[in-house]
């Protein structure tokens, strides 16, 4: 731990206590505003918009919704519209215009049970191809939606008749580097990670990391898939090198035990795909850097390419609270700025310094 000042520092800039349980928080792209999604004690949902101003987060708008809102994404909207897509406890997928949030611009009963996770691609100029939203639910299905198509999903990944339905905890888009290619990765409560290829409509790869998968994320959605980070219930996370898929061994990976408790979330820095932050169950944040190996693939004994995983190094870790940090979001516009929310009913704006020199 030499030269502590040369390391990135994570600074608590703003802390806001809330009167509800916040599940997710997201920056509104191209703005200094963020959205908090949650659950009032009386059992209704809430959307709040805050603006960062002069060292304070000011509440601009608050809307109450009938059902608690679990997750949200801006990934499938245009930069001009910036509509947020949310999934709620009742299995609804709604898209809201935050200027007029009273009625949704799109809504569908997506799942039978709670929507645990949502992700979008094709909007904000991230990812070529159609704007699509993927939702993962407790009912065991993962569905892909196009906001232009009402009522039915454009792709549905669900267990066959007779298979046990696992709770899908997390979904993420990736590999959207041209009009056709696109992948969805889903993580389940039993430790399964499944990678669906939307181009061929097939399951491309699956693995099991032995513990419930809390969060998966590609380092970037809109490139030829490069890395995938999956975090798990017992404090480990795995980084998969997604460039080389071996027919039997799959993707090479490196795992790291980061936290003493569940790693709730992982988010890659939008400005540098090799840096990511994990949010832990003990209220701590760890900032990591992935370092590539000298050679990213090699031939195995049969002469088939097999990937080589790199290594991860810890850049900084801080403890914010005693309660889990459940969601984290980097500002897409300002490097180092991030917002995170925890089960201590508060939302924090953090600044991470010196990210540009890494």
């Amino acid at each position: 731990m030499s030269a502590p000042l040369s390391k990135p520092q994570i600074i608590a800039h703003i802390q806001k206590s809330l009167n509800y349980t916040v599940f997710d928080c997201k920056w509104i792209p191209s703005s200094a505003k963020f959205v908090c999604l949650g659950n009032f004690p009386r059992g209704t949902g809430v959307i709040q918009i805050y603006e960062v101003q002069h060292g304070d987060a000011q509440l601009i708008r608050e809307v109450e919704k009938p059902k608690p809102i679990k997750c949200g994404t801006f990934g499938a909207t245009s930069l001009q519209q910036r509509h947020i897509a949310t999934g709620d406890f009742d299995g609804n997928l709604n898209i809201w215009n935050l200027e007029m949030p009273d009625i949704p611009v799109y809504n569908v009963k997506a799942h039978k049970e709670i929507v645990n996770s949502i992700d979008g691609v094709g909007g904000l100029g991230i990812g070529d191809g159609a704007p699509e939203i993927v939702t993962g639910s407790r009912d065991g299905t993962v569905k892909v939606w196009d906001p232009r198509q009402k009522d039915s999903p454009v792709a549905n990944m669900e267990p066959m008749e007779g298979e046990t339905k696992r709770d899908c905890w997390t979904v993420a888009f990736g590999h959207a580097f041209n009009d056709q290619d696109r992948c969805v990765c889903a993580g389940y409560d039993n430790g399964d990670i499944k990678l669906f290829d939307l181009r061929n409509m097939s399951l491309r790869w699956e693995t099991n990391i032995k513990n419930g998968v809390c969060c998966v994320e590609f380092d970037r959605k809109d490139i030829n898939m490069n890395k995938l980070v999956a975090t798990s219930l017992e404090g480990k996370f795995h980084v998969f090198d997604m460039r080389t898929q071996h027919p039997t061994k799959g993707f090479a990976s490196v795992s790291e035990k980061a936290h003493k408790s569940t790693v709730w979330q992982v988010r890659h820095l939008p400005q540098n795909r090799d840096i990511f932050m994990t949010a832990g169950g003990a209220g701590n944040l760890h900032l990591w850097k992935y370092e590539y190996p000298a050679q990213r693939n090699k031939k195995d004994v049969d002469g088939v390419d097999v990937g080589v995983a790199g290594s991860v190094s810890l850049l900084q870790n801080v403890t914010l609270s005693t309660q889990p940090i459940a969601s984290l979001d980097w500002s897409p516009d300002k490097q180092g700025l991030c917002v995170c929310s925890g089960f201590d009913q508060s939302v924090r704006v953090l600044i991470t310094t010196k990210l540009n020199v890494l």
Partner: protein
Amino acid sequence: MSADAFSSHQNQPTTVDYTGKVPVEHLDYDYIEKCKDVKYLEKILRALRYNDVVSGEEGIYPHLIQFCETHLEKLDPRSRALRKENPVATAASLSHEEWSQIVDELNTWQEETKKNEASLRHQLTFDDLVNENIPPVRRSNSFVPLSQNSITKDRKNPTKRALPRDYREWDKFNVENECELIDGNTANNDPPASLNTGPPQIKTNVDASSWSQPEKLLLANREKDKGNEAFRANEYEEAVAYYSRSLSIAPSVAAYNNRAQAEIKLKQWDKAMEDCQKVLELEPRNMKALLRRATVYKHMGNFQMAAEDLRMVLMEEPQNTAATQLLCQIESKNKECQREGKKIIIQEVEEEDDSMNEEEQTACPVQPSQPVGGEESSATPDERGDMGNAQKKPHGRGDGGPHSESNNSHHGHWRSKGSSDKYKVSQEKVANGSNKRGSTASVPGDQSGSSKPAGGNTGETVNLDAPCGALPPPLSRLKNEGNLLFKNGQFADALGKYSEAIQGYTESGIDSPDDLCVLYSNRAACYLKDGNSQECIQDCTRALELQPFSLKPLLRRAMAYESLERYRKAYVDYKTVLQIDMSVQAAHDSVNRITRMLIEQDGPDWREQLPEIPLVPLSAQQHRREELPSAEVLQARAEKAARDAERRAEVRFTTLKQEGNEFVKKGQHQDAVGKYTECLKLKPDECAIYTNRALCYLKLERFTEAKQDCDAALKLEPTNKKAFYRRAMANKGLKDYVACSSDLQEVLQQDPNVQEAEKELEEVTVLLRQSLADSSPAKPRKTVPITEVEGDEDMTPAPNSESSCRGDNSTINLQPTNAYEFGQSLSAARFSRNTAACAELLASTPPETLPEFLSTHLDGHTVSFIMQALDSHLLEKDPNLVYQHLNHLHTTHRFSVVLMLLEKDERRHMTQLFEHLSAVESTEFSKNDVQNLANKYI
């Protein structure tokens, strides 16, 4: 516990029990220090901490824990046991400056995003969801099974279609297409082992047409980031693809620059070169691009160009190690090449190379491990002398001998041994000598040399406020800052400091010529480094006026003269230096070199052409210890007041001159003449101004005045090439071909390489013969009928008239003979926005031929441009001609169409012209005529 026991532990690390409890003996400084087993150490650390927190059964040893941690860190800095929980940092945990910087950045970002957001919202009101280029909705509700084994049997083929149900549909069935589809599918069914390693099919251009400007910037930036990331992961092809995407959205210097770097990695030299060129077009002084272009040149084998680019880089950033290294490589390669291919390489190239090297030397005084030999070393030591100037002064009193010597040897180790040794000695003496002279010169100022801290003490302790001679603290601070900057190679900044100091000095009215002399001398050094030899000479001259026969200004002036190729003056200065101090090796070398040059240039009797070398009084000679005669000092002070006034005039003079030069560049010669005339009022003996004004007169075709100016210039400087050349042109304009040819011959005699002069001479000889033949033989040089000569001129081939007007419109043919030439000239003038040239062109074109000439390329812009030219230049001189032109212009083919397409601005120009024209009284046309004509236009 004995030492043997420790060693036994070390020798058998495998026997260490990782699972069990750490024996208490191991919780020991000695044991921990000797333990090399990281895993076991971690365990010990854990045990210690556990003790600390929970059990406490073995006691608490905070220092031992710390010791263990540091030891572990030494062995494995990334050990997990070292990770500690940190509280989150707050604003208070940063320094105030850091935090305020962060807050500032955040605030500016907030403001910017607010603006951006507003513009995005604004955008939204315009286009509501017009996104045609979004791909269609995916095939509805595909089902993907969750388990892998079911894929093959259940996979639905997205391209599968129901078979035609109708007979008519069978007609449309394309068998081949279907077959291909099936083939394609089977290929898809067996994906290769490694699915994702091949080059990705990334579209390299993005359709950005539907995005607004802020969006484009954002997305271009993001694509660039992606490129950077791919680059860092050593995936250069991907990086190039993303940079290309970024550029297709919004071109930026950074993206071009980075793409060039990626292409260098891919060894795509041509493409990299293109990108570097693009960067340099947008930003000519982009160091990275220069460096990259140099790399490309190097790999393409073009060492000359590479070295040139590197020299540019080093001029801006003398500390740039990458550039110096590359330069070294290139130099050695270049030498190899020359050695191998000696027969092929032409002498000239080698010479060029030498001179380049010299320039590099001067540009980069801190170049490490630069092999220097032969002539170059002779030039560099005196450079070093300038640099050493500041460094040696503090030790001037004699006690600093060893230090300055070590300084010298430090600098000297990288140059050729012999010269560095010699140089060392000489430098010592120079430093000592100048201090002694300084101390004897005036009473309050005697500390000027020795008390100067000069930031040169290898930068350890720099006291910027140290007093400097008689300078008040703010001025001495400026001076010291200047010295420091100079030492760091920031010559332009140092220059500013010195200039401020000088100005402050003149304003404060202090009476200490020594300090002023030093300031001027230092500023001269800056100018020299910046390659501004003229200014350097001026400053040196001023310094020498204050302190005649002071060594450094003389040496610098000599070098400046040399770089300006005024060898005679340089020779004189070097000789004077040697009179003052025989041991300045650099001066010896330079004198030798210049002697050779002068012999080449002037022949065996070169000495006769030299200006007089001043005799240095014994008192000023460095090896003698007598004091300067105080009379000299008094005289210097008496002159000072006069010089102050002069200096103020000087400032005004330079600004006027620069303004004049600006006007010339813009083609506003009339205004330039005004400025130059004012200049000459201030300083009637400035040769350059005369020649410049002569150029303007030439452009304005006022040949008599031009000739007068050239004469004046030649009186001041009898060998000024430019003056001769311009007088030749003036004479040509005056049809005095004999005088013209003699002037040109003079130019060529001075410098046989002036090709323009040669060409001109050829032409003029032809013209001379013709005019002799045409006119009566009795009076060869008088009254040549103008019409005839004009005919001659017309007959002369195009290049003649081209070279007859140099400068801005050197490429514009002002006497076109056919529509093609006219078109060329007109478009050349239009592209350079040179209305003057256009006016000249129109003046030399008969109005009746205008429609014919213009016919093919008449468009709105041309019409407007012609209007402007007529209005701004021709209307004053010859309104009749303007009327004639306008009278014929509208008869041009397609004119009415063009007229319809004119823009508002262009119409305004036209109305203006007619307003002006109607205001002119003329015999050839009446107001009514103008009105009628105007009706045809407007």
